[in-house]
């Protein structure tokens, strides 16, 4: 069954005295439970606006969201709260998205307490489980975000999301600020969470190889609409839309670049 269905979603920003910015102009897709969708496209095409609308951070100006068979805009207050808990987002700037004045332990305790995910007595054990899930040593518990690396901060962000036992995680450029070596670890983490916990993932990235590596399906976004969607391998190996080809040609891929260079040298 489909976990999330999006129909003809629009996001328009209105600033008084200026023409409206139509960031998302009619996006439709559906995501099965446990599936992963990659969204790629160049800067300003509306990826983050779409993501913010999906988690209810930004009101959609038109369109419908259906989550687990129920229309999100017709949910009761409690129902909407449950939806906001079930769909979590991880951001590019992990260090900046954590509270700088809270240690890792305080951050995780707070989210478990405020959302009543565990009785107080069971919280410490749950924190240990969460650290284990994201592959962090317990030695980071008393560190502040600025005292740990960007990759570790990104793991803490994932742990904070997982504390809420979500069904869907939307990750907006979760690795673009990280070193390749750390990037690999976070991407492997995303994959293992998906496999072990049956989570659905929406991964927004401008790195097509990352999406190709992690996601079942991919949507190519251009100017507020999806211009091509399909199985990730099909779309990226045999692109049909001209814009997808432009994106693919812009990717600095090590393997491809070396091959053409070696050929030129011979």
């Amino acid at each position, binding site marked *: 069954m489909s976990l999330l269905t999006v129909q003809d979603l629009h996001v328009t920003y209105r600033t008084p005295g200026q023409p409206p910015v139509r960031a998302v102009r009619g996006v439709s897709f559906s995501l099965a439970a446990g599936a992963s969708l990659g969204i790629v496209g160049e800067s300003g095409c509306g990826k983050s606006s779409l993501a913010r609308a999906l988690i209810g951070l930004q009101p959609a100006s038109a369109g419908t969201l259906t989550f687990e068979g129920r229309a999100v805009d017709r949910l009761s207050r409690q129902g909407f709260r449950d939806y906001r808990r079930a769909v979590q987002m991880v951001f590019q700037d992990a260090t900046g998205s954590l509270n700088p004045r809270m240690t890792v332990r305080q951050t995780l305790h707070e989210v478990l307490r405020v959302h009543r995910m565990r009785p107080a007595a069971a919280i410490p054990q749950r924190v240990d489980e969460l650290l284990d899930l994201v592959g962090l040593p317990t030695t980071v518990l008393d560190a502040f975000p600025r005292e740990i690396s960007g990759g570790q901060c990104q793991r803490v962000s994932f742990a904070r999301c997982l504390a809420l036992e979500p069904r869907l995680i939307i990750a907006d450029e979760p690795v673009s600020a990280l070193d390749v070596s750390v990037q690999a670890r976070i991407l492997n983490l995303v994959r293992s969470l998906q496999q072990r916990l049956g989570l659905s993932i929406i991964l927004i990235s401008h790195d097509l190889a990352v999406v190709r590596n992690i996601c079942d399906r991919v949507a190519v976004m251009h100017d507020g609409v999806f211009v091509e969607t399909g199985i990730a391998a099909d779309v990226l190996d045999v692109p049909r839309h001209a814009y997808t080809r432009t994106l693919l040609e*812009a990717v600095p891929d090590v393997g491809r670049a070396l091959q053409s260079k070696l050929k030129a040298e011979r």
Partner: protein
Amino acid sequence: MPHPLLQVDHLSVTFRRDGMLTTPVRDVSLTVQAGERVAVVGESGCGKSLTALSLTRLSPTDRARLQGRVLFDGTDTLALSPDALTRVRGRGIAYVFQDPSASLNPVMRVQDQIAECLPDLPRAAHRDACVELLTRTGLPDPARAARAFPCELSGGQQQRVMLAMALAARPKLLVADEPTTALDVTTQQQVLDLIDTLADADGMAVLLITHNLGLVAGRMTRVYVMYAGQVVESGAVTDVLSNPRHPYTRGLLAAVPMLDAPRNAPLQDIPGTVPSPDAWPAGCAFAPRCAQADARCHAEQPPETDDADSHRSRCWHTQPCHS
């Protein structure tokens, strides 16, 4: 062989903090020929930026002790007076940094910032020169951009303004420190194409610091791989990336997601992290993270090899048999 445009010999950068000495850059040697495209790669904290800043003793290296020699166009910049250095910065070596917002003055119009890089021109000529420079960088509406404040431009546009400032004095060497890390692939390609075009037109050399190995493979001719303040492997891009000798270089390459890799093949990461400069390991700096490390690796620093085809590495297990 002509003498290189830039020749760095045994450069070390040492800071004193709380009475303790740390040396984040250790014995780095590198060369850039006139017009050449050279890359420096490595994880963050490996000393890439400090090496770049040392070339003209830019802060924070003005608070550090620099040892070694930096010959630029035949003069040792480490021995120059502050005035002479100012002339090298800009006209000789110009910089573009990752974060435009950190280098652009938020309360100054773009044209006034670019004008500061054109000291030889009379004031009346500044505006035209500035618009011309911005036009060369391919900005869609250069006249508007010239009048704009930085916050009114997108990230990619700010990066072009930085480039216009760097190019204003027609430098012989452009040092670009992660100039496109924050940009998406298409914008990144435009900025790098632009650097290539301008470098071709003026015969300018480029030293590109990046952690994107795809960029290195596609656009650069030689590469230096830095780890823990040292150069651990260097050579022609085609040699180093298609036949990497150092386990660190191999690790970096294996971590890159590739477009033609089978889906769901886990990416190889490099376990552990870059050590901090106040705790460099005694032997090979990479030993704590290296699967091939043995007792000698932990105890003794491997020397840099030099073999016939100038593909060098610093590893006990890739020494040529005859040495």
